[in-house]
């Protein structure tokens, strides 16, 4: 058991660090949730792609480096430590791409991945509907068979990035007669600029349009944009659902970097004898380290030929409870990082005293408003990618074996 990096991995880390030091903008880009900021972030994706850093684990043919999961962790540690911009392509890279690798055709991979890697195509997700949030099986938006493809009709919501993105992916009810609500769904990609698509941006808690409603009226989708088999969308989506909750959604590097900044803020700003804040800072630092080490265990397990995709588990270190159910283990991770993120940012706001009240765009907001923005961002954590209530049900039922209740 060891935590030492090989010389080659160290070299990879150094290369990433040097590249980032040379390229990360000195001042934060304008907010991702504005038209101007979106464009700036898309530019940044192009720069990342030029350096071949936008999707390091992908095969080289699609713009990646074929890097190991460990190297991805290292890259993300460097990325967040360097305070590089938020990833406008995250929906595509973290959610759609793993699905394509698992279920897409060679043609789809070749067509979809390169522009995703370069930021030329930015993807939004289109899962939720007004009546189907945590309960995805209640989806009602439909895909009706037509010549050479499908016609989409319905109403999607909470579509993150959709206010400014190019394309979207999601589940649609294609076989309404299926015997169970999970069946008869199809996983599709579609164009947000296609005829019949209306995008209505929705402001998040601070008013910035972080997501949108999509109204779909006879939107044509060619067969080539169906992922997996028509009618099998639920299975396709669930096979990579852990990715949305686990490491690939919120990398440990995000938290180790934020915790280090929090500790620096505490040293600089706080009365060091204020043990109440000290304890909360220490807990944030400890939580970030726990998540980082847990990720190390996970990539080690994968490298050792263990359960691929087993997110979040620390179980591999000592054969603990979570060993058996990799998808469900991602639920542990999601509960952990989402609560850590809120605790960390609440601590920062409390450390900032009266300046903790300032909105991110206030001129006097500390650190360019990043703490305030981070708090707003963190508040969504326990809600999306399956609420933490759902995650705890999954943990209890699938990892602890407790009987299913009616909830």
């Amino acid at each position, binding site marked *: 058991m060891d935590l030492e990096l090989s010389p080659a991995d160290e070299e990879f880390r150094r290369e990433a660090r040097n590249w980032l030091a040379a390229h990360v903008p000195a001042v934060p880009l304008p907010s991702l949730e504005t038209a101007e900021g979106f464009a700036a972030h898309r530019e940044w994706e192009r720069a990342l792609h030029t350096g071949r850093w936008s999707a390091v684990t992908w095969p080289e043919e699609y713009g990646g480096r074929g890097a190991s999961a460990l190297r991805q962790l290292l890259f993300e540690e460097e990325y967040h430590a360097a305070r590089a911009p938020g990833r406008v392509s995250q929906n595509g890279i973290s959610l759609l791409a793993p699905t394509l690798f698992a279920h897409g055709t060679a043609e789809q991979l070749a067509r979809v991945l390169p522009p995703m890697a370069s930021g030329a195509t930015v993807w939004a997700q289109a899962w939720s509907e007004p009546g189907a949030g945590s309960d995805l099986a*209640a989806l009602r938006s439909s895909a009706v068979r037509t010549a050479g493809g499908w016609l989409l009709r319905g109403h999607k919501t909470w579509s993150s990035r959709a206010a400014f993105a190019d394309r979207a992916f999601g589940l649609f009810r294609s076989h309404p007669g299926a015997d169970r609500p999970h069946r008869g769904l199809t996983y599709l990609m579609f164009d947000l600029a296609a005829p019949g698509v209306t995008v209505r941006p929705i402001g998040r808690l601070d008013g910035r349009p972080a997501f949108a409603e999509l109204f779909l009226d006879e939107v044509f989708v060619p067969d080539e944009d169906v992922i997996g088999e028509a009618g099998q969308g639920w299975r396709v989506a669930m096979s990579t659902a852990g990715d949305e909750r686990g490491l690939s959604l919120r990398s440990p590097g995000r938290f180790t970097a934020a915790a280090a900044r929090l500790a620096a803020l505490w040293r600089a700003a706080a009365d060091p004898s204020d043990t109440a804040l000290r304890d909360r800072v220490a807990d944030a630092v400890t939580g970030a380290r726990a998540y980082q080490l847990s990720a190390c265990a996970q990539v080690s397990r994968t490298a050792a030929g263990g359960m691929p995709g087993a997110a979040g588990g620390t179980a591999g270190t000592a054969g603990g409870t979570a060993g058996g159910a990799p998808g469900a283990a991602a639920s542990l991770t999601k509960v952990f990082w989402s609560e850590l993120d809120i605790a960390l940012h609440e601590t920062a706001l409390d450390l900032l005293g009266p300046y903790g*009240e300032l909105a991110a765009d206030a001129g006097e907001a500390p650190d360019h408003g990043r703490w305030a923005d981070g708090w707003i961002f963190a508040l969504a954590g326990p809600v999306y990618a399956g609420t933490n209530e759902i995650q705890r049900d999954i943990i209890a039922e699938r990892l602890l074996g407790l009987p299913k209740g009616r909830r």
Partner: protein
Amino acid sequence: MRFLLDDEQREFGRTLGRMLAAADTPAAARAWGAGDSGPGRAVWRRLAEAGVFGLAVPEKYGGAGFLPVELVVSFVELGRYAVPGPAVETAAAAALLGRLGDTGGPAEKWLPAVAAGDAVVSYADPACGPYALDATAADATFLASGDTLWRLDREGTAQPSVQPSIDPARRLSRCEPGGGTALASGPAVRAAAARAADTARLLTAAQALGVGRRLLDDTVAYVKQRTQFGVAIGSFQAVKHRLADVLVALEFAEPLIYGAAVELAGDGEAGTGIAMAKVAAGEAAYTAARTALQLHGALGYTDELDLSLWIRKARALRGAWGTPAECRARVLRSPVPGR
């Protein structure tokens, strides 16, 4: 001992609530945040007509005396309806000026206007924070520092320096002693400023309680009608227990607030009780906000649902006029009774 609102006090609260429910206060709050204080001013005048601001003004200046219990009743409703503007600060400034008293001075000039709803007044105390709330929308901004009471110039609190709060209906301006006219000086100012800070802290607690009550009520209503997995989400035990915990927190913050109001109305020391009330109400309201957001799901995370007005305000009020840490320190500054 009779630790209970009387019928008149209760009816006063209900009347205010009815009036505010009809006044589209969410629209006024959103306009206020966008820099249009017109609708908020209209609500303000109706509050004054109902007698709210007069509760902080001595009778000789056209008020009803200094009545902390009735002020708390009012400010709970202000919180419940997300009324924008520096109401806490206006009441605190009135408490200060009323305590100072004078003839021909600031009390005589400002208190009748406050009671009548003609003056929207901001108030700052650098010991409690570097910003004045809504100074750019106010008719005057006072500031007490040490032994001196200042009226700040417009320049000291001008538009370009407005700092938006996490609650967009709160617009903060940095202000410092010296950026205006010294109105009064001496130990009486110091004593009156202490009373003003106590008043501000207490009424912030009351406002937070109202915010928490509203968040709870709206969330309870939502979880009764929102269905997932074929049933109302309010039937899930995890949802029930979170809401039950919010109710427990609010129900036990409330007597602290009224107890502190009774103490402030008397002659004795009220600061300990007020600090307790502030920390309890602030934490209860913030818990209510976190719970409301979580149980509304993505909907609770949107600006456009009016719920956001209260969620954001809960966070801002938690720190205003005394952070939880400052209040807790204050609780233990005096010996704890009980032998």
